[in-house]
Every structure is written in structure tokens, then in C-alpha cells.
């Protein structure tokens, strides 16, 4: 018998004006067919990322009212979408938001593996966001990347998405490399 462990189902970067900059979707293990397939459609994942903006906004407002601003930008668990999917969030100090959707049963683990533990702590997501942030910083360091073009819709036209192949590879590496307990991506 195998046990399911969490894996990343989707990584999203959301621009300062709530515009999607990047979406990576990762397949989850389906025990019935013994295959890997994304849990939801790209449309559903994009709606899911968009809905996380609400929570970012609410938390920010709430923190502002209570005068407890987040020092690190780590929003931790944003919300659970159902009993499998949960969204975790991180905000850079330039207002770019990073969302990681975790599938709690996305991966098989062999019985007896020491890493099999149920549940997930917020802290276990930190390496993911650290890696995403450094990938994003690397992207910004590229002199041919114009962040202003990705600012998002000011006058009604959506901003451009990130097209960097290297960035996409970074995201793929993060999304596939992470399991609970991984500290360095």
C-alpha cells in the first residue's frame, strides 16, 4: 500500500495590479488510474489563483487595522480549497504575490518512508517561496526584462506575462522538487 504525501499542484505569480504573471501547473498522482494528471483544468487553476487575491487583500487590510504588518511577507496558509488543495501565499515588498497551491495527496510515498506524515506546516512552504523569490529576482536582473511591461492593466489592457524560459524552468524545478521536509530548492 502506498500513502499519499503533499506535492505542489500549481505555482502562480500575480503582479502588483492583480494580473497573472505566471502560472505553472503540475500533475498529481491519481491512485485509481495509477497515472499523473493535473487535478483541475488550467481555467480552474487560474480562477483559484485569482481567488487568492481576495485573501491577500483581506489579510493586508486586517493587518493594517490591527497594526500588525507582516514583516516577512509570508502569508502562510491562505485557505484550503477542498480537502486536497490548499493555497499558500507570499508577498514581496514590491507587491508581487506568489501563490503555491499544494495538493495534500499529490504524490505517492512508499510505506515505511520516514517522510510520511500527515498534515503540513506553514513553515514547510518557506523554501518554496524562497526559491520562487530568488527565481523572480534572477528574472528581474535580466536587463532585457522590463518590469513595467508586466505592471498589469492600467488602462484596460492586461499586462504581459512572463515569457522567460529560464523562469519557467525554475518554476518547474521548484514545483517538482518540493516535498514536505525539503529545505533547499
Amino acid at each position: 500500500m502506498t500513502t499519499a504525501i503533499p506535492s505542489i499542484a500549481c505555482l502562480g505569480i500575480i503582479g502588483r495590479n492583480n494580473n497573472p504573471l505566471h502560472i505553472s501547473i503540475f500533475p498529481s498522482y491519481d491512485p485509481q488510474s495509477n497515472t499523473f494528471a493535473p487535478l483541475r483544468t488550467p481555467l480552474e487553476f487560474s480562477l483559484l489563483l485569482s481567488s487568492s487575491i481576495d485573501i491577500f487583500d483581506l489579510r493586508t487590510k486586517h493587518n493594517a487595522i490591527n497594526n500588525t504588518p507582516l514583516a516577512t511577507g509570508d502569508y502562510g496558509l491562505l485557505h484550503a480549497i477542498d480537502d486536497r488543495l490548499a493555497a499558500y501565499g507570499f508577498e514581496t515588498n514590491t507587491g508581487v504575490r506568489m501563490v503555491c497551491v499544494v495538493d495534500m495527496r499529490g504524490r505517492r510515498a512508499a510505506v515505511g518512508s520516514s517522510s510520511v506524515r500527515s498534515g503540513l506546516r506553514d513553515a514547510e512552504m518557506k523554501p518554496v517561496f524562497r526559491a520562487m523569490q530568488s527565481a523572480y529576482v534572477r528574472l528581474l536582473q535580466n536587463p532585457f526584462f522590463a518590469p513595467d511591461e508586466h505592471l498589469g492593466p492600467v488602462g484596460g489592457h492586461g499586462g504581459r506575462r512572463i515569457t522567460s524560459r529560464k523562469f519557467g524552468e525554475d518554476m518547474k524545478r521548484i514545483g517538482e522538487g518540493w516535498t514536505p521536509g525539503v529545505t533547499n530548492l
Partner: protein
Amino acid sequence: MDDFPEGSLGHSVPFLVVSGLNGAEPELPIEGDLKDQGILVQSDLPRLETREATVLDELFTKVDAAGRSWQGVDREEKFRFRVKSTGRSVLLPPRKAQLPDSEKEESSSTSLPVLHSPFSPLSTCSRLYPDGLIDAQWIQKHQHLVPSIILSFYTITTDPTTTTLQDNRLKSDIAAFRSALVASGYKTKLAVVLLADDDSTPATQATGLQERLENIRRGSGLDPKSLFYIPPQGSPGELKNVMLNILSALYGPAVEYYRDLGRHARKKRSRGIAPQPTVPPTSGTSRTLELAGWNFRYDFKSAVLGEFRQEYDAAMKSYEQAYEVLLGPDVLDTIPSWSPRWNEARLLADIIAIRCLRLHFWLRQTSLAVKRWQAHRDRLADFVERRGHGTDNYGWQAWEARWALVMADLMDKVELQGLEPESGAMFLPPDKAVLGDRLQPFELLHHKGYWYRTAARALMARRRLAARIREEDRSPPDQKGKVFSYDTYLCPMPYEENPLEGQGTNHAQLIVDCLLEAKAQFEARNQLRIASELSLECAREFSRMKKWQDVLSILRPLWESRVFRSEGWHGASEDLCWLIRRAAAAERKADLVVAVDWELMSKQFAQRPQWSYDLSRSLEGIELTDKPTVSLTDDQHESFVDASFVFRNKESRAGDHCSAQLSLTSNALAGAAPLALSEIKITFDGSLKPIVLSHKAGSGSDGTFLKSATTLSEQFDENSEDGLPSLLKGDDDLTLVPGSTRVYELSIPLREAGEISAASLELTYRGEQFDMTYGMKLGRASQPRGWYRDGFKRPFHARDDAHTLQVQPRPPKLDIQVLEPRNQYYANEPIKLKVQLDNAEAEVASVKVDVHLFGQKAPIFTLSSNGEEEEQTASVAEAESKITGFSLGKLESAATSDLNLAMEPLDAPTTLDLHVRATYHLDSDPATPIMQMLPVQLAIVSPFEANYDLVPRLHHDPWPNLFDHENIVTGDEASKAATAAKGIAQAWCLICHYASFAEEDLRVLGMEMKVAPSAGHARCDVVKQHPIPADGVVMTPKTMEEARFELTAQKMSLDDRQPVSVDVSIVIQWQRQDEQDQPVNTTVMAAGQYLVLSTEPRVLASVFEMPPAAAAATAPDDSLMHLDITIENPSAHFLTFGLTMEPSDEFAFSGAKQTTVHLLPMSRRAVTYRLLPLVRGTFVRPGLVVRDKYFQKMLRVIPTEGMKIDKDGLLVWVPPGENEEEEEEP
């Protein structure tokens, strides 16, 4: 949770029956035969009909209502009861079931059968007989039928005459009631409240009341804590307070009652045997409830009774125990899944789980609650998989949905703290019990929206599975009792869920209900994006139900607020558009269909295969009565067309043309049909009228870029007041090919001044099926603002705000110029200027001219127009002269008018500023004055400059003799001959070198010296003017001429010793060389002031080639020269001079080499030398020294004609001889 049996889930709180307050007839709310078998416990005394009774009845209704709440009872709360109020009698359910009729005969023979409670599976009348576990009826019995306490109300009289009688009646009645209650077999307690009657007074109350109460209590056999007395109260409020205190006092005994029952249940469990039913089952399987079932039953009972006592931990423990037993190997595992008992057991498991969840909520163990929720689900799923029909059918999903809704309902009913919309929390933090554990994210309790959404997901799965029901199962079975392999727990049979014919379960409606609930929750928490997502899902369900109206009503707000679109979530907005498109087409909303089609053309969206992206065919297949006109704006509808409008330059002038570019870029999907617009209208803020471009079928270039120049023509309104054009029209090919950029270069005539900014653009499409306009704002910051240069497909950045243009006022087109201007104007000449005004306007202008002249001293001038008519004199101010409002009348287009300006001559050189300002208005627009000005600077220079030298000459007349008596005049004669000068005379010569400073030739026509004696005691006469030829002397620029003037000065009186100064000026009369017909100009130049006739002695040398007297007598010797040294002594002293003549190599001389000359006052003497020059044609230097003997001072010898002097002394010119004439040159 409504599907669970009534009473199975209610909050269990102590049950209290109040009797004697109203006239309600007792009844048993149970069904079947038991209804008639109730035990009646009644009292004979009349019920209370006082005011207090009403008040108390109301109070109990409220207490009961509070008792229904599902909120947890906390320690502060004094009591919580469910209360039923009846009349004097109370009906209790039968304690024991009756023997069934069939058994009665048999039992009479054998031993008496043991009777059991009618709710027990042991009794044949029970629904549970013979092998049921337990059902809601048992809970109902304790919650609604058998009270813990019966509270009876009586009146106690205070009338002294009847007290004993009344007390005895009370005593016996209560006693009878009590004994009837005890006889019923229930442990229900009796409490009595005695109310003082209305007539009582404090006095009557006091007398022996205590004894009476004690008497009644003892007589009726009540315990001391069960009798209450309420004295008359002042207000209903006080009465209520008293009553609430009594209820608090009763709460303890009530809890005690349930504790006893619980103890009883535990006792029975500990016996460890399964009781036998009254009558062994004969039909069916003849299976009876086994011991494990009984253990479950007892555990369940003690759990519920624990809940009655509000002992949550104890209740939880019992529930968990019961749950484990139920799902253990001995109970549920032994029940076959086709048996109705299977579903009953599942129901019990659900009830226990729900009650456990509720206990967790009451204990604020929210994470444990979620864990419990999940555990129950997993356990049941496992069970259904193992023993039931599996989880892969609609029944299981129906249960999943129900199970999620249970959570939402529970949170609602328990009124859980911490997740209210105001708190802003999505989920609760983990509770203390699991604080350190690794939790699944959803185990942090999320708000109700999460659970509703989970339910909706399950319902969707249910629908999917329901659609997979086999066809043979979809029609009602022929024979009864057909077993289906579907899980039908709490849900319809397969032939009802999805029948072959007729309506089955309306899944979509169920889903929509859940989604809308969820949406309301998310919206309340301001999670608008999730709410939008749910709206989309709702709309999908509505469209499945073909409720197009609902689709539109739920999606339109989303679409109009552009929630996804504005932030670039294209996938979601595309989904939204297609949903709306479908609904709008079904609802025949043409405007919406067109608007959505317009949006869907954008290449931001994925291209749908098989779809024709052609706006003109949008309304195909939609029946419409009339041709719709659709109007869209970019505020509400995104566009695939990017537009920008750019003026070439920042500024222009009214009357000119400015060039501008309108560029339209189509970002339509590559497969879309080209869109041929009918018209484009550009409107402007400011004074520019709209531009309308109409479609004209053109070349139809296929390239991605096309630039064309479009000519505009002005359209005039017939009844326009200002005569300005109302519209600018042009035509061009307005076809927008997907992915291409179309640039229209316009040359716009400007008519009015002011700032113009392109405000909006309206694209009009007119098709066969509909007309459409799309309004766009121009000048947004996001719009590209570049200028397309020839040969480039990308625009060059023009500037910021390139959509605005500053139009300067109309430039004057009246030209003013000075005709034939001179290079120089001179002082002393009248200046004439000819100014020409040339009307270059297209129409007749009425012109007035103002002329201003500024300078240090502005001269007077006159103006005349066209050499005739008006002539005006300037009005002179200090340094300014001007003529204003000089009217020139109407000037035809292209006509000219000349203006002659004549200035008086100026005395001195100066600089003048001349401003000629023409103010005019056109006949077509008299209100707008137009002004043109010509500034001219005139530099006035003087034509001549000169320097002067006054040199002495020898006056040949003899000096008057002091001793000549004839010249002595008397006083009378002196006045007569005032003019006749008698003094010493001197001769002078003014040498004037004058030059022309003009840049052109001047003709000097005459020169004259003028002498103005400064005083009357001397007379100066000009002896000889400089001669000028009759036709004058032409002076070329930068040449110098010499002129000599001779004058004599003579003192009037010999006695006068004062020196005389003379002012001399030279007058030149001249003309410009090319203006000989003009009057002669006169320039007066002051030559300065000179002193003449001083009293100092002077020595004048003069030379003659031949003495005048000897010229004729002696034979002329050309070479001989006479040098006269004339010494003048005009002073009144006797002076002695010594003369020395030194010999020289250049000449020989005769005369005194050294001599002394004595001079009397007022006399002069001459010493003559004869020189024979040895050289010719050069100066010789006679070494002549004149010395004042007295003062030992050398006198300067002043030369006269033919001589000159330098620092070494006198030089005498020796003319050359005849033979050397050629080479002589002075």
C-alpha cells in the same frame, strides 16, 4: 439536516411541564396505538385564570424558545429548559407496552410475559422490534413526553374564613396528583408553586402563612424544596424575576433526574446480558438484537442523557463508545446492506457524529471537529465500500453533499464564534488540543462558504454518477422489493433519481442552491473573486437548466464590472463571455450578443474551433422583429481595436492646416473576418468640429500596415450663425484586417483659436442585421502616442499629450512694408517714407492705421494716404508723436494702399522708432479685430563733419594813431557814429576741413560762414566766403574738402582793452545727388568760439615775392623774396624787442642781422628782410628770433599766408622756378 428524523438532533435540555396556567388539553404527540394508552395524571382544582397566570405563561413560552437554541450552555447560565404548558392534567406515555392481542390468550396459560417500554425493540408495538437498535422516538420521549419535573401552579387563598377548607382541598389534590405520578412508574418530580390570591393583604399573608405552607407540604407529601410560594408582586417584571429564581432552583433537581436515568442505563449495560423480547419474533429472520446492540443502545442513552445534563465531556465519551460499538464488528458488520436496519444504523452513526461535532463546537475544539468530520467520512466510505454498494455511485455523493452541508448548518446553528464575516478570518486557528500537531490545511475550520462549496462539488459528482445509472434501473420496478445495487441512503431510488421518463432529481437546482449559499458567504467576507467564480459555476448550472434569464442576471454584473478582464485573467473572462453569449442568443438579446461577439474577437482569447468570428454574422439564427442598434463604449466593453490620435505639432494657427494621424490597430483573432466599418467619427474638446470618415471601398491591402492620406472637406450648416463649418468629412477604406494597423493621415483646417484635444472616437458599423457604434476615449495614458513616419511601420514617440493641439489666434494677413527705404536718413533733411499696406486676406478688410514715432525728440510728421485726401498732423508729446485712427477705408482683397509719411527735418543725429500698426477686420467677421504691426527703426545721421582752424592774417590797413586828433570824437559824435569802428583791426582766416559722412554722393551747393559777435564793442566782418561753383561740388563718401573764409575784427573803441570772442558757424547747403528736384537742405555746423583782438603783443611774419611798391620799379627778380616781420603792440606799454636773424645755407638775405625795435603803445612796426633763396620748390627756415628785451622772453613768430611753423620755428615756402614747374608740389 432536515432529512434526519425529528428530534434526533435537537439540543437535549431538561424537560419541564407546567400545569395549571392555561386550559390546553393534554395530548401525546406520538403515533399509533400508543396515543390512546397514555397515562393521565390530573388535578381537580381549577386552573389559574389570573393576570399572573398569563404573565407566567408568556415567560414559559420564552424559556422554551431559549431552550431550543443549539448554542452551548456555559457555566454562567443558570438553567435551560424545554417547557410545555398544559392545563390541569398531564398525559404521560405508557410505561409498558401492551401485550399484542394474539399473545394475550397464550400468555394467560403460561407464565406472565415480561412487558417492556413501548419504545424498546423488545416490545412488539415498537418499530424497532425485534432487532432495531434505537431511534429518535426514545430521544423524543425524554425531550417532549416525559418531563423531569412537573411544575403545578395553585392559588392559596388568604380569606381567613375559608383558609382551612381551601388548604385541605389543596393538600388532598396535590397528594392525589403526586400519587398518580408515582403510580405511572416514571421518576418525574413534582414541584408546586402557590400564588397568593389577588385579595390578599400583607396582614392576612402574615398570619400563620408559614404554618399553613408547612401544613400543605406535609399533607401532600412534598419534599421541602419542591414547594414554592409567591407573594403578590408589584409588577409583572418582579413576578418574572421570582419565577426565574424558582426555575434556577429547579434546574438542579432536573439535572439530577437525568443523572438517575443515566445511572440506570449504565447499570443495565453492566449486567452484560441481552434481554429477551416480550414475544419472540416469528416472522422474517427471527433475529433479535444481540448484546453488542444492547451495549450500543445503553451507551447511546447515557450519552444523550449526559447531554441533557450538559456534561459535554461525559457525553462525548459515551458517544464515541457507542460509535465504536456501532461501527465495530458486532453491530453494523452483521447487518446485511439490503436490510432497512442497515440504513437505520447508518443514520444512527450520522446522528452520533453530528452530535459529536456539536459537542466539539461547544467545547471550541474546531480542528478536532473537522478531524471528526473527516474521520466519519473516511470510516463510512470504507464501510460502504466494504459492506455496502460502494462509494462510486450517486447515493454516496448525495451523502457527501449532505455531510458537508451538516457542517455548515451546525456552524450556523451553534453560532460559532470567530468566523463572522466581520472578523475577516478565512479559518479558525488550530485549537489547543491539536496545537502542536501537523494538520491538514482544511482541518483549520473554514467558514461556511467552504462547506457549501464542498457540498456543491459533491452534488456535481452525484449528477455525474446519476447520469451513469444503467438504463434498466431507470424505470420503476415491475415487482416490489427489487433490490438495486445503488446506495439509496437518504436519497431517491435510481428510477426516481434519473428516470427514463419525466423529471428526476433536479441536480442543477440543488447545486445552484449550494453555490448561492456559498456565494453569499464569500461575498459577506468580501471575497469577491471567489464569489465571481461561484457565479460562473452557477451560470453553468442555470444554462444546463436552460434558465437563460438567470444566467444573464447572475453574469451581467460580473461582465459589467469586468472583474476578470480588467486584471488580465483572460481564461476566466473568456469563459464568462461564452456563457453570456449563449444565454443572450437564447434570450434574443441582440445588443448583448453583439457586445460579447465584439469582445470575443480579441486575440487575447483562445480561438474556438468551428466558430465563425465575423461580426456581421453575429445575429445569425436569432429571430428579431426589428433591426437593432447597439451602442457600446470602452468603459464597459473591451475592444480588440486600439486607437490613437496624434497631432503632428504641438501648436498651430487658426486659418492654417494641421496634420494629424488616426491609427487603428486591430488585435482581432487571426481567423476573424475583416471588419468593414461604415463610419469613424472623431470628436474634439475645444473649437474643432467633429471629423467624420466614411467608408469607401479601397484597395483592400492585405498587409499588416497601411497608411493613407485622407482629404477632408468642410461641411457647412445652412442655418449656422457663426459661419463656421459644422463637420469635416472625408472618406477612405475603413476595413480593419485582423492584426493590421491602419493609419489615416488627416490635414485638418483650423478655424478658431484655442486648445483642441481629441476626446473620443466612435466606430460605426452598419450591417444587414444590425447597426453598431463603439465609443472610445482618446488621450488615455495607456494609448500609444506615436507618429508614423513614411516608410516605418512602427510609430515614433511624438510627445506627451500628443492628442492636444494649441491653436494660436488667426495670423494677420495684411502685409505692411516700407517701400524704397533709404539706407540712411540725414539730419536737416525732411524724411519721407512710403508705407504700403497689402491686403493678402481672402476678403475685403476695413483698415485703420496708427503711427507712433518714438525717440529722444520725436519730430512732427504728417500722414497722407494715396497722395491725396486726408492729411493729419502729428500730436506731439515729449518723446513721442503719433497719429491714431487714421482710416484707410475698405481695402479689397489683394489690393494695396500707400501711406506717405513726411517728417520734419531733424537738427541732430538721433535714432527713431517708427511703429505702423494696422488694425482691421474682415467684412465677414466684424467682431474680431485683427492687428498687424510693422516696427521700423530709423537711424538719423548727420551728413557732414568738419574741423576748423582760425589763423591770423596781417591786416594791411594802418593802425589808428593815438595822437591823430581827427579821430578824436566828442561824446555827441560818438553816439552818432556808433557803428563806425575806431579801434584796432585784425585779419583772420578760418580754414575748414569738412567731410561727407554719408554713404552716397552729396552735392554741396553753397557754403557760408556766419559770425555772431558776442558783444557790441567789436565788429566782425566776413571779408571773403569760400567760393562754390554754381552747380555745386559733388562730395563722394569719405572724402574731405577744404574751405577758407576770411574775416576782420575791429574794436569799436581804441580804449577798449578787452579781448573779443567770436562765434563762427558754417552753413552748408546740399542735396542728395539723386534728388536734384527736391528743395535744398541746409546744415549748420558750429565752428566754435575764438578769441580775437587780445592786448598781448604778437609777431606776424609775412612774405612777399616782391615788395608791392618796388615791383614795378626794379627789374623783377623772380627769385627775390621780402620777409616782413610785423610786431604789434596793442598794449598800453612801451615795449622793446630784439631781433636776430641767423644766416643760412638755403638763402642769402639782406637786413639787420641784429637789431632792436622800440614800440610805442598802440603801435606796430615792420622790419623787412630780403631773401634770395638758394633752393627752389621747398621750405626754407629763416633763423629769426624776436625777444622781449624787458622780460627776456622769446616771442613766437606767427606765420601768415605762404608760411608755416613747426617746433623749431618758421618755415617759408619758396615757389619753384619756371623751369622746374613740373616737379613743384607744395
